[in-house]
């Protein structure tokens, strides 16, 4: 092999300026700049731009934050006490500056309510989502009956969220054992046969904001509203699953359930 280094690309020059260049390319880029005046001038100009931008706007971050951006105030204007509970958790992260705020057992709850509940729901998802002939006890065509029956068994008013907007059709539902009694289980399917399930049961855990959990190929979004917990499970990417969870959440919220949007 020759001694000549690989030529330096423009992308590498940007990465160099932005501190994203892999360490092993540093000396190559520096050698390149020493012998290529045009590129050296470009790099110098980019650095001057960075300095000018920081000089112009950097100080904004040290100004006192105006009252209207005060999180406490904004939170009090929230829709409901539950929003406030979610917001308080959110605020803790904003002020704490924590990255990766949705993690398993993040709030020190340990492998208790949250973990076991979602794992129960994911297990149910895994068990029934692959079922071809008998995925549900009551088909989606009898949705009214299904919802009435499950509501009676779990002891609170349920509804089967309408997820048509996301291309999901209600396959149906079934009754399952839950952690403290009965659990309701709804199954949805898109046109390619991909299935999503919603599991709901009474929970004695505290209210939580939406949380995310993964178990093998399945993942789930979980939240507690009052004394009822909901888990939305699927095998989709998180982004897609979060849309399903968001739509379900909105419709389970008694304040927004009957409106088209919130």
């Amino acid at each position: 092999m020759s001694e000549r280094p690989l030529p330096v690309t423009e992308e590498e020059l940007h990465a160099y300026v932005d501190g994203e260049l892999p360490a092993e390319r540093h000396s190559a880029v520096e050698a390149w700049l020493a012998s290529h005046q045009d590129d050296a001038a470009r790099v110098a100009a980019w650095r001057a731009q960075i300095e000018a931008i920081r000089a112009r706007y950097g100080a904004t971050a040290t100004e006192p934050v105006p009252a209207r951006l005060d999180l406490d105030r904004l939170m009090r204007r929230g829709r409901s006490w539950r929003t406030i509970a979610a917001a308080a958790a959110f605020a803790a992260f904003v002020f704490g500056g924590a990255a990766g705020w949705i993690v398993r057992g993040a709030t020190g709850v340990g492998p208790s309510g949250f973990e076991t509940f979602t794992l129960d729901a994911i297990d149910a998802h895994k068990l029934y989502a692959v079922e071809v002939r008998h995925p549900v006890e009551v088909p989606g065509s009898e949705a009214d009956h299904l919802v009435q029956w499950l509501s009676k068994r779990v002891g609170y008013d349920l509804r089967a969220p309408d997820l048509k907007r996301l291309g999901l059709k209600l396959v149906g539902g079934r009754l399952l054992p839950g952690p403290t009694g009965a659990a309701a289980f709804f199954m949805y399917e898109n046109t390619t046969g991909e299935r999503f399930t919603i599991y709901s049961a009474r929970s004695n855990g505290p209210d939580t904001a939406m949380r995310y959990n993964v178990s093998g190929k399945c993942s789930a979004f979980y939240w507690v509203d009052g004394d009822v917990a909901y888990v939305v499970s699927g095998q989709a990417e998180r982004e897609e699953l979060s849309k399903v969870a968001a739509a379900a959440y909105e419709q389970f919220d008694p304040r927004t359930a009957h409106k088209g949007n919130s």
Partner: protein
Amino acid sequence: MTIPALRRYARALTRDAETADDLVQDTLVRALRSEHLFHGGDIRSWLYTILTNLNRNRLRSLARRPTLTVLGDDDAPDMAGPEAGSRDIERALASLVDDQRAALLLVVLEGLTYREVAEVQGVPIGTVMSRLARARAQIRAFLDGERPALRRVK
């Protein structure tokens, strides 16, 4: 500690203090509505994402109502010294396409990695790189074009 950074980003993005704080407020209100709470990942990136999208929407609706578009006061006399430099960079930023400006500011002002910017803007890293490259080339050309005006004042 996140809110001051959001204000900084918004200020540079809009180059107007009031508009910037409006954006930050809208971002926080939207974030506090819990249906938006569950995208996961880094909360800072997520807030930058909301703010970037809100700003894009804002610019779109401004474009639909051209009479409301606020233009820089280009009639103001050029000044020498640091003031002139900061006005130059402001106008250079204003000359950028929105997505390029956001990419550049997220990298150089907010310190996001290319990967994070790709996530915020919802595009591949290669697109972030080309936005960055175009933004830098445009600012350089803009400032080169401005320079004669400054020399005249000297």
